[in-house]
């Protein structure tokens, strides 16, 4: 008998004027010891299915039809108390947004220990022991030290791993993992996937994995369900679905998967997606707003030059300087980024990539070193006018899209803000038009502007964040995991947009990502980071073909195989 059975599930979000159906008529089942992968368009309703199963749909969402069974017992109508008993113990849930899933005021340890002790009859110290083991199992070094820290002291990937540890700590029978590895570098990803596989096999756990990473699907799933616009469009054995996709959406999806081995000029724009209501037009730079008036002063030499950057955080404050503890997040990092090029940072989770991004944007003051932007020294910028000018030229897409959006503002206001602020448009009508246009380009459609951030799916939020970053018409764009939550089709669309901008306007980018395939497509040069240090900087192709540093080689080896996919008719070829 299967562990989880979903029959004809329908989930509605009643709006003021109409009802939005996020999931319609979805029927799925997961067997013990098996992994079901759910892929699909961003915003298709994948997370909603997971939330519905565990009974934590965000208000006003509710299950409008269908049934959910766990071990043959119907659970969607259970009273609150009994539902609660299932959570954590029977069903482990990993939410998509790992960065906001942790209570900011509790240490990682206390969150783990309380969960363990709620479900398992362990003493405090046993629970702590188990917590440490779990943290080690998900690949966080220095577990006994680290566990005492607060979530904000962890990097994005580390937080994601903590969330995974939390979901698994009571040995549930069903694990629902919503994008569990988006923020993880390949080696950690491999480790986590291995952990999951082991759980399935050894403990007979059933697993529902939501992801957009075809590599992951190919790697670990037994079955695949493909969702599009709230509906299940294809459902079957993984080999079957990936090898011989039937539905046109699945076909187009597979065709858009980027490949690490070949570099292409543009990602293929898939017909099926174009039909979906938010077609992407190629930007005609000459007439488009994004291309207007880039009167930046030319620089000779690199646009961004970082020398000996150093950043350390105080992890334990104390009256006595000798008792204070520091964490060296970035150590003597130097690199150049030339005008018009894409510089990539890859590396282990927690190796300091986001920190470097924040140093450049001035969100952190470095404890040492200097950053030159053109001729300006960024670390000692005081004059308000200079700062402003700098801000306009430099934008950042945050790793955590949700918390970087002000929950109280409408999406259109969020995007319009930089335009209005930097006076990039002459009238309100023009601003509105630009915002609509940007929303179109990231595949959301102008109607999205009226909503608030919490009404969007993970991928949609990320796209809002991208639209905002583009709104200043920046010269230099820092992208921290810009596509980690996007399905491949949208990812293709976004990456194309960035490429267009780069080609036509000479946009410079610092691109942080774990996805080597994406990197291969985007980069000119790559820096590989580990433990806060830059261990290798090389040209893109050179690095992929002939990696120098042992760590780089290890990374490349660990890429999930795309064998299954390559068997399919990849449109890129």
């Amino acid at each position: 008998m299967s562990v989880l059975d979903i029959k004809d599930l329908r989930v509605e979000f009643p709006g003021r004027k109409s009802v939005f159906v996020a999931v319609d008529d979805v029927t799925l089942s997961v067997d013990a010891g098996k992994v079901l992968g759910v892929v699909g368009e961003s915003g298709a309703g994948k997370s909603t299915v997971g939330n519905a199963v565990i009974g934590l749909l965000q208000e006003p969402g509710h299950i409008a039809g269908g049934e959910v069974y766990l071990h043959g017992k119907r659970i969607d109508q259970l009273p609150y108390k009994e539902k609660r008993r299932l959570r954590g113990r029977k069903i482990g849930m990993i939410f998509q947004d790992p960065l906001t899933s942790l209570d900011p005021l509790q240490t990682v340890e206390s969150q783990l220990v309380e969960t363990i002790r709620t479900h398992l009859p362990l003493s405090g110290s046993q629970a702590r022991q188990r917590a440490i083991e779990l943290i080690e199992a998900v690949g966080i070094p220095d577990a006994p030290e680290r566990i005492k820290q607060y979530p904000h002291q962890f990097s994005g990937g580390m937080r994601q791993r903590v969330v995974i540890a939390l979901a698994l700590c009571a040995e549930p029978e069903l694990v629902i993992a919503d994008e569990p590895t988006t923020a993880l570098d390949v080696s950690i990803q491999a480790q986590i996937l291995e952990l999951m596989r082991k759980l399935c096999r050894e403990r007979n756990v059933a697993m529902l994995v939501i992801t957009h990473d075809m590599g992951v699907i190919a790697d670990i799933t037994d079955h695949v369900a493909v969702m599009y616009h709230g509906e299940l469009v294809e459902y079957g054995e993984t080999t079957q679905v990936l090898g011989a996709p039937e539905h046109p959406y699945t076909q187009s999806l597979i065709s858009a998967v980027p490949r690490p081995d070949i570099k292409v000029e543009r990602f293929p724009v898939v017909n099926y997606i174009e039909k979906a209501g938010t077609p992407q037009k190629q930007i005609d730079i000459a007439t488009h707003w994004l291309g207007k008036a880039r009167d930046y002063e030319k620089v000779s030499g690199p646009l961004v030059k970082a020398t000996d950057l150093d950043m350390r955080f105080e992890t334990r404050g104390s009256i006595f300087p000798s008792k204070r503890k520091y964490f060296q997040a970035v150590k003597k990092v130097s690199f150049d980024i030339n005008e018009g090029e894409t510089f990539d940072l890859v590396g282990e989770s927690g190796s300091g990539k986001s920190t470097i991004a924040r140093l450049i944007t001035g969100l952190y003051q470095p404890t040492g070193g200097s950053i030159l932007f053109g001729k300006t020294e960024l670390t000692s910028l005081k004059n308000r006018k200079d700062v402003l000018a700098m801000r306009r030229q430099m934008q950042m897409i945050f790793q955590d899209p949700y918390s970087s959006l002000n929950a109280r503002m409408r999406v259109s206001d969020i995007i319009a803000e930089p335009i209005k602020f930097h006076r990039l448009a002459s009238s309100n009508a023009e601003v509105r038009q630009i915002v609509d246009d940007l929303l179109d380009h990231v595949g959301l459609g102008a109607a999205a502007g009226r909503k608030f951030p919490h009404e969007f799916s993970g991928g949609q939020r990320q796209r809002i964040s991208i639209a905002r970053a583009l709104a200043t018409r920046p010269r230099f764009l820092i992208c921290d995991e810009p596509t980690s939550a996007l399905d491949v089709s949208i990812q293709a669309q976004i990456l194309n947009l960035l490429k267009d901008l780069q080609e036509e306007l000479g946009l410079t980018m610092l691109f942080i990502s774990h996805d080597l395939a994406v990197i291969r497509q985007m980069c000119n040069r790559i820096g590989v980071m580990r433990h806060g240090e830059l261990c290798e900087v090389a040209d893109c192709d050179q690095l992929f073909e002939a990696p120098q540093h042992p760590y780089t080689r290890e990374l490349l080896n660990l890429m999930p195989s795309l064998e299954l996919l390559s068997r399919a008719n990849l449109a890129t070829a």
Partner: protein
Amino acid sequence: MIGFATRRIVQAMIVMLVVALLAFTMFRFVGDPINQMVGIETSIEEREALRERLGLNDPVPVQFFRFVTKAAQFDFGTSYQFRQPVSELFAKRIPATLELSFASAVFALVVGIPMGIYAGLNRESPVSKLFLSVSLIGISLPTFFIGILLIFLFSVTLQWLPSFGRGETVQIGSWWTTGFLTISGLKALILPSITLGLYQMTLIMRLIRAEMLEVIRTDYIKFARARGLPDRLVNFRHALKNTLVPVITITGLQLGAIIAFATITETVFQWPGMGLMFLQAVQNVDIPIMSAYLLLTAFLFVTINFIVDILYFFIDPRLRVGRP
């Protein structure tokens, strides 16, 4: 931390100096102490002589300087009405006020916090609506009015509780007297502490409710629920703690306010505390008592706010970054 503390102590001193200075400027507007010190028939000459002796004719800066130098040695002068050293008077009155404040703070917190959580979690429940409304009616009537109504009901009509005073008190140590150890002392505490704590209770309850409404919709609460944590943990450890920054601020302020401004309640219930003495001092223009009292409250507020600021750091680790 030590740096932080010393800085705050220096700041506290400045605050007290400013308070003293302001107080001095102000006393001229409160009334003429001489009128209260002597009978109405006392002649002008005698009044002048007295004024001269009290130094009230000296320029304000001179009076101020004199006051500050003495206050630094814990000498706040002699009360005009009681003809006793102010510090002694305060020593006698402080226990009464502190006990009353403590009781009403306990009342405000013990009722306010759970009700606030309940109302936040059960937004639509009739019980929480009822409680919210009743407490509002409670605060929209003036304190003295509530006090009188309570006295009318519980003392005059039902004769359950005393209408004034502290009841029997027990001496502890050399100067502390407590009403906590006798039945009549405890009975005497009930009405005044409810009267005094009502406003605080309402405010705390409503604040917690408002904050809870926001916090329980965050992802980490959702995730805490998804982990199957019992409601008690989710609500108290995760949700409540995340509402605390504004709540602690206001609670701190309100506790300060309870102690500092128990005046009206103490007057209504003839509670022999500092507040009663202060109000009498205002009426009688007893400058030494007023200035000592103001310094005491200043000290109190500085301390409470210091504690609140420290608590912030304990509650929210994110605030610790980059702090001394």
